[in-house]
C-alpha cells in the first residue's frame, strides 16, 4: 500500500521536524492553517479546512444546528479525553490534509463514532433510558429484593452481552449532518 507508507513517511518526517525543534516552520503551519482552531469550540474553526466544508454545510442544515456544535458530538465529555481526542485528531487531520492522502469521501472511523455515540447518550440520557437492556437489568434487580437469585435459579437463556447497546447513528445518521440518504 504505497498510500499508507507515504502517509507514515510524511508523518515521520513531520515528527522528526517537530522533535528537531524546527518549531518555527511547524509553528507557522499550525498558525497559518489555524491549527489553534482545534482548541476552541467554534464550528467555523473546523470549517477552516475546506475538506470539512461539506460537514459544516450539512451541520448548518441539520436539526442540531441550534443545539450542538461540532465538539459536542466529536469530542468526549471529560476534559482530558476532550483534549486527548482533539490532539490526536488534530494531528491526524493536519498530516492527512497536508499530504492530501486520505480516503475520500471522509467517513467517520470506529473510534470517533464511539465518541459521538456516547455524546448522543449523554444529552439524551432521559429519553433513551428505556430502550437499553442493561438498564432494565439494573432496575429490576434493584427493586426485586431476592429476585436476582430467582433469575439465576431459572437460568435466563443468556446473560446480557456487554456490547448489547443500540447504535443511535444507525437510525439517526443525519441529525448532525443533513444529507441525502
Amino acid at each position, binding site marked *: 500500500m504505497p498510500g499508507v507508507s507515504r502517509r507514515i513517511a510524511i508523518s515521520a518526517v513531520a515528527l522528526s521536524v517537530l522533535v528537531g525543534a524546527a518549531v518555527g516552520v511547524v509553528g507557522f503551519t499550525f498558525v497559518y492553517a489555524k491549527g489553534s482552531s482545534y482548541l476552541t469550540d467554534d464550528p467555523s474553526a473546523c470549517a477552516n479546512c475546506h475538506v470539512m466544508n461539506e460537514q459544516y454545510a450539512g451541520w448548518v442544515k441539520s436539526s442540531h444546528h441550534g443545539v450542538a456544535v461540532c465538539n459536542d458530538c466529536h469530542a468526549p465529555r471529560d476534559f482530558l479525553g476532550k483534549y486527548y481526542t482533539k490532539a490526536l485528531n488534530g494531528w491526524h487531520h493536519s498530516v492527512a490534509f497536508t499530504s492530501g492522502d486520505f480516503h475520500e469521501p471522509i467517513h467517520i472511523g470506529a473510534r470517533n463514532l464511539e465518541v459521538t455515540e456516547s455524546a448522543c447518550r449523554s444529552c439524551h440520557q432521559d*429519553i433513551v433510558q428505556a430502550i437499553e437492556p442493561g438498564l432494565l437489568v439494573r*432496575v*429490576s434487580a434493584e*427493586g426485586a429484593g431476592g429476585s436476582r437469585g*430467582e433469575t439465576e435459579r431459572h437460568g*435466563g437463556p443468556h446473560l446480557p452481552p456487554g456490547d448489547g447497546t443500540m447504535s443511535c447513528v444507525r437510525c439517526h*445518521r443525519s441529525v448532525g449532518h443533513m444529507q441525502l440518504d
Partner: protein
Amino acid sequence: ALATNIFERKQEARNPFFRVAELTDDTVDPAIWGKNFPLQYDMYLRTVDQVRTKYGGSEAVPHAPTQADPRSVVAQSRLEEDPRLKTMWAGYAFSKDFREERGHAHMLADQTFTERQQVTKQPGTCLHCHASTYNVYKKLGDGDLMKGFDAVNHMTYFEARKLTEHPVACIDCHDSQTLQLRVTRPAFMQAMARMKAAQGVQDYNVNRDATRQEMRSYVCGQCHVEYYFKGPEKTLTYPWDKGLKIENILAYYDENPHKDWTHADTGAPVLKAQHPEFEMWNQGVHARSGVSCSDCHMPYTRVGAQKISDHHVRSPLLNINRACQTCHHFSEAELRARAEALQERTFRLRNQGLDALMGLVNDVKAAKAAGKTDQDLAGVYALQRRGQFMLDFIEAENSMGFHAPEEAARILGQATNLIRQAQILVRDSNFKPEIPDALPASAGDAHAGPGTGGKPVGSPAEGTGGTAH
C-alpha cells in the same frame, strides 16, 4: 403545574419502569407483565385492530358466530378475492379457507377456527407459532424445551390446544428478569444450528451467539418462515440446511423427498409455501444494511418522556413516519409511493404467473381426458411442482415483494417460465425444457448470516464482522 409536569417527566425518565408485579420465568399472562410495563402492554393489546393497506394490513369482515366458529369478526377471504388460488391449491385444505392474516392478538383464535381444521386433522405441532407455548414446552419437557416440543408434536391439535390460552406473549420474546430478547422456539433453534453448521460454524446457539441486532429479527424469524412437518413424528422443520434462498430450499426438498399433497386437478405431487418473510427479507437490501424486522414493524415511539418499541406490531405503511422516515428523508406520500411501486411490479408478475398456472391446469386436465397417463406427464409434473412452489413462495410471502423486490421479481419471472414450458411439454413430448439455472446448493446465501452483511463504514464493532474500509 408546568414545573410539576417537568418534574414528573424527569422522574419517569430516570426510572422508566416500576416493579409492581413479580415476574418469573413462569409468568405467562401478559396482563401481569403489563403492570410493570403498561405502555408496551397497551400497545400490544392494540394488535386486535384491523386496517387495510393497498396490499397488506387486513379488513375486519363481520362473521355470524356459529358453534364451529364463534368469531364475530374475521379477515377478508383471499380465496374470494382471487379464485385462482383455489385452483392452485386444489385438493388441499388451503383451497377451503385462506384469509388475509391480521394482528397477533388473533393468532390463536384464527388457527383454532379456520375451516382448514375441519377438513384435515392437524397435529399439536401447529401451536408452535400460534400461541404462547414456551411454558407448555418447558413444563411437558420437565425444563427441557426440546423434549416438550416433541411431546406436543405427538398430540392432536385439539389435545394440545387445551394447554395454552394466550397468543404469543411477553414471555415468548423476553427474559422475565432482564427483558432481553430471547428465542424460545425449538424449530428455529435447530434450523439455525443446522444452517450454521453447513456454513462451518459448529454448535451454534442462537441465544448465546446472536447479537442484539440479530435478535431483533430472530424473534420474528421463529414463526414468519417456510416450514413443513417432517416424518411421521410431524416434527416442525424449517428447510434451511442448505441456506435460505429458494434454490437452497428446493434443493433441500429434492434431497429430502416430500410432498404436501397431490394436486387434485393435475395429479402432480406438489409443495405448499408458507409465509417466508424471514427468508425473503434476508435477500433484500434492508437486511444487507442491517435493518431488522423490529426496526420497521416495531419502530421506536415517543410516549411522554420515554421512547419505547411500538408493540403494536403491524404494517409499517400504517406508521410511515416512525417506521421509515428516521432513515429515509422523503415525505410520507413519497415513501408510500415507493413501496407501492415495488409492490405493484410484484403483483403484476404474480398475476401473470397465476394466469399461466390456470392455463397449465386446464391443459393437463384436457390431456388426461384425452388419455395421457401420470407416467406420460411425469415431466410436466416436475415443472409444475417447481414452478408452482416458486410462484406460491412469493404469493405466500406477506410483503408483496417489498422485503426483497428484485429477488421476488426474479423468482416470479422464473416461475412463469417453468409453468409455460410445462404447457409446451403437455402438447409436445419432444420438447426439452430448460430449468433456469438452479443454484448449486453449496452456493448458500449471498451473505454469511442473516442481517450481518454490509455494516456501515465505521459502525461500532458489534461482535460479528469487522469494518471494511
